[in-house]
């Protein structure tokens, strides 16, 4: 997995909530048995006109200012729906390394910015997910609206996001230590787990899997 620590790139706005994995990559592209080639299929049904080839000028991410963008800012519950890791492969292979989404408050309970499985899949593919408050994410959307093509920088070690608007705005973000280490190190999970082989074998010797 490609490590990520310091990253700077163009911010692209997708101001929609509950963007589901069927929108991120429609089912017809899940038939591939390869791990590559998913980038052009990202947001397929929104991105292209009915011919499936011509970019739809009405789709916000097709604006020329966002060409080559690598930091996506979007709405709450991004990546909901299926477990398809193809969704993250498409995001990453289309050039995005960072996704920002807002958490929201629901009667005192905090609703995370990203769907669980999608967020987990991102952490296995070198894609950093950043959750901020709704008001902070609004500030980022406003900065992009004021200056489309504005860049953002991430310092993962310092857990800091900076939008290079004028004036610059910075945000500190929280991240699980496990995910942070994995992303910075570009670590292979399986290799890490295999170091615990003795514990797994010991566990298996006394565990009942209940299979007849």
């Amino acid at each position, binding site marked *: 997995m490609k490590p990520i620590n310091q990253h700077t790139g163009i911010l692209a706005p997708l*101001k929609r909530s509950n963007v589901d994995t069927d929108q991120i990559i429609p089912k017809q592209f899940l038939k591939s048995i390869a791990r590559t080639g998913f980038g052009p299929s990202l947001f397929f049904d929104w991105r292209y006109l009915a011919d499936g080839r011509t970019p739809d000028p009405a789709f916000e991410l097709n604006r020329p200012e966002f060409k080559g963008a690598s930091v996506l800012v979007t709405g709450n519950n991004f990546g909901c729906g299926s477990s398809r890791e193809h969704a993250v492969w498409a995001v990453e292979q289309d050039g995005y390394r960072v996704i920002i989404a807002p958490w929201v408050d629901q009667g005192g309970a905090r609703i995370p910015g990203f769907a669980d499985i999608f967020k987990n899949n991102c952490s296995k593919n070198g894609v950093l997910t950043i959750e901020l408050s709704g008001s902070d994410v609004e500030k980022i959307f406003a900065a992009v609206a004021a200056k489309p093509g504005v860049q953002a920088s991430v310092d993962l070690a310092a857990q800091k996001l900076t939008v290079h608007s004028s004036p610059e705005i910075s945000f500190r973000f929280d991240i699980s*230590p496990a995910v942070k280490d994995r992303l910075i190190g570009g670590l292979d999970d*399986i290799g890490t787990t295999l170091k615990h082989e003795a514990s797994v074998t010991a566990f298996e010797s006394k565990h009942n899997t209940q299979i007849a």
Partner: protein
Amino acid sequence: MAKTLFEKIWDSHVVTTLPDGTSLIYIDRHLIHEVTSAQAFEGLRLSGRKVRRPNLTFATMDHNVPTDDRMNIKDPISKAQVDALSKNCRDFGVTLYDLNSERQGVVHIIGPELGLTVPGTTIVCGDSHTSTHGAFGTFALGIGTSEVEHVLATQTLPQTKPKTFRVEFTGKLAPTVTAKDMILKLIGLIGTAGGTGYVLEYCGEAVRALTMEARMTMCNMSIEAGARAGLIAPDQTTFDYIANGGAGRPFAPKGKAFEEAVVRWKALATDPGAKFDRELTIDASKIAPQVTWGTSPGMVIDVDAPVPDPSNVPGYTRLDAEKALEYMGLKPGVPLTEVKIDTIFIGSCTNGRIEDLRVAASYLKGRKVAKGLRTLIVPGSQAVLRQAEAEGLDKIFKEAGCDWRQSGCSMCLAMNPDQLSVGERCASTSNRNFEGRQGKGGRTHLVSPAMAAAAAIEGRFVDIRKWK
């Protein structure tokens, strides 16, 4: 200390807790299908790794499978994916229920049928609807392909311990109202991210009264509430389901082993006084048949309610609701019962089991589907298909003008030839009404099998509580 059902299962599966605070969890069953496994097996090959426990790993093919001429997959890319699964299972020694198998079916339908799903275990599958198996008091979660590879190689999964969320359904359901309506109601209340980070435990009088198949419907859509998993404590209903399958459930314990297992399973229930991170109580007696009107499962209303005003949709912005209404071709204020339907889909891991088909048949018996309507009835597995045909349900469906199909995921996600066309409106017993889910431009309304069957006859939604 008093523990929840979830905590009991979790604690008995922690192999080790890692320095970063996550835990390595042992996986008792790994279910596999063709769509999310090829890259994982390829990863094993590239790194020279083996499947650690092939005897705990089970595969089937379901997503790409045509439900008419099933042995003839015309799409070469679909065919290649299905063939890759066959080869991977052969190469790595994994049991496969392929298209020639009399046990083939949608992966979440066949797990319980085979007796692979039993209380107190952990199950993973590269499929978000793995939550289905939680109906047995099983911690069952959907995972991505990297994690599929991880479980193949290590039989474990690194996990952050989820929080717990107790959802109690008090009272009794009204006649014709089902588990599908209960779960849609819940998603409408807490939203599609309301359960994110939690394991939901469903309990209360209305949950206790559900059959195993209805409990599976409920747990199946836990993921539509964003939850990592759904759980229901095992009880006599669970034990009877497992025992009564007999030889049909080859992997379930039998005889003395079964008696001993029941003792363990009874101890799994949440202890009195155990604490949950979040709790919600819903009066089940007040739940009406539910119908989704939008492009997110949380965009759901009672069947007798009008399509909502986009500025007044709880949990959704005006913009999101307007986009959904536009996509669905609906106007605020219109009663759903006036909306004309083109297609009916009865099937999927949500509602493709024998009880679902029996309910649908009870409505369709001696009647005809509305003129011009396409009605697909797709059994969830070969076992469901055989049972339905033994009971003569297939004849009822065919006489009513329905299309009786072979087992597979079918129109739930349209990776196979069963798809909606642009603008086509479908009453579907599946789990997702996302844009394009059932085919590009298709319009999905999620409902129970009873609602779908009644809609098939009338060609529009009806309030089945009042329907003849």
